[in-house]
């Protein structure tokens, strides 16, 4: 049982409320991914719903932003999404994680954390795709 890390550092995980962080760590254990890879997967899942986003990394976040700990393509898509939606770019991280944990939520404030087998299966598929890339 080895955890596969991708490229996210610990800043996003450390910034999460306790209940959300525990849920991410549970998904990490169940899917044999690192917690940071689960966060990246949640963002990829959320941003892929918006087919208007460019698949090229055209914008990157400043080093002080939590977004800067993400791979360039996710940074770029999160920034594009934030501009189109007229919300702060860092709020995109919260929307994505909340949506992954509870699709009936909007932010962490109304997120009723659930650990779903379908989401674990999706994460395992995501891990395989990352490993094959």
């Amino acid at each position: 049982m080895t955890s596969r890390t991708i490229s996210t550092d610990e800043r996003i995980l450390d910034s999460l409320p306790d209940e959300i962080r525990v849920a991410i760590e549970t998904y990490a254990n169940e899917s044999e991914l690192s917690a940071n890879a689960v966060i990246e997967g949640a963002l990829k899942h959320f941003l892929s719903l918006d087919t208007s986003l460019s698949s090229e990394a055209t914008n990157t976040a400043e080093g002080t932003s939590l977004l800067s700990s993400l791979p360039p393509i996710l940074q770029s898509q999160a920034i594009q999404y934030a501009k189109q939606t007229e919300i702060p770019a860092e709020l995109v991280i919260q929307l994505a994680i909340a949506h992954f944990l509870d699709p009936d939520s909007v932010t962490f404030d109304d997120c009723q954390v659930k650990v779903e087998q379908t989401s674990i299966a999706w994460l395992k598929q995501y891990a395989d795709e990352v490993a094959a890339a």
Partner: protein
Amino acid sequence: MTDSVDAINAEALRILKLLEEVPFDACCPLTREFAELPPRPGIYAVKHKTQGILYVGKSGSVKGRFKGGHKALGWAFMDRLDPDDVRIAVVVLSLQWIRLSLQLDQIIIRQLLPPYNVRVN
């Protein structure tokens, strides 16, 4: 100001009016991909052509919420409703209302008592 009870109530009723008044033909039809739904935070209504609003909900991505399957559509199926007579209306939430989506959703549901929300509760 935004957080005042009066302001939240007023915004909830504005959203409810929009959901009720949008013509059925202008709502999003049911498809596998729900391509017409916005991948944005919003409040949505599952509407029937003649019975009106069946269910009201919220999500950080309305498109994502339906792509993953939705119990309201399952109930519509079991109620033998024609899929062509069921569509989805959406009001996208602006930044100032995103954190108040739960309150907005609850006010709208209390006001309207959509049959499929009542079934859940």
